[in-house]
């Protein structure tokens, strides 16, 4: 499973901010598909690192 950005979408970006936004949205889609196709325990192990570092 590789993270590939839709280059056509990027071409439409008017500036760097917009470009960054598109890249973020593409990653959200990639990660959601990762969650969809992997066991709960597998994706949550990674997510819990972020959450538990913020909430003690």
């Amino acid at each position, binding site marked *: 499973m590789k993270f590939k950005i839709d280059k056509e979408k990027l071409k439409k970006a008017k500036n760097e901010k917009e470009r960054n936004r598109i890249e973020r949205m593409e990653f*959200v889609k990639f990660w959601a598909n990762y969650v969809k196709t992997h066991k709960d325990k597998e994706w949550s192990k990674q997510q819990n690192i972020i959450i538990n570092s913020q*909430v003690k």
Partner: protein
Amino acid sequence: MKYNINEKKIVLNRELNNLDKFVVNFCSLLEEYVIVSGYVSILFGRSRGTEDVDLLIPRKEKGVFFKIFEKIEKEGFECLNTSKKEEAFEMLKEHAIRFSRKGKPIPNMEFKIVKNDIENYSLKNKILVEIDSKKIYISPLEMQIAYKLNLGSDKDLEDAKHIYTLFEDKLDKKEIDRLVEKFGKLDKLEEIK
């Protein structure tokens, strides 16, 4: 993750993180409620944290609210707005009040009374989520998406896209269209597809 649409139930087979534990502990003190907004996306894997969790409860009589307030305090939470239940009850008529673990303002539960049709829809159509055999109630995913599109910040659109992508084959698309149209945000819906 298993979503049974007919039973309005999602089962997650994963370990609770510290935010989940906070939410599960708090919600176990309430009889009728629904969790809305950002935490719903996080519950299903969104890779971000949050400082607050939004929760709606139906309007309560003063005496009933006092009992809930006392129960929450007894279990080690405190209201960040006031320690007086009378004052908290009055505040709730105007705005949300927040509860956290004593001496730890983050994370906190943003506690609100249902005040409009949208919030009432979320409460009436709530979904049960079982996580590590603990139970919590969340807003329907279709409303979650529509509501996030209406809020409209980058973070909200990302939350909406996460839910949409994850549950794409299970969502009631007609209902999403109806709700999003109600908010007047059909253009935003195209952005997350």
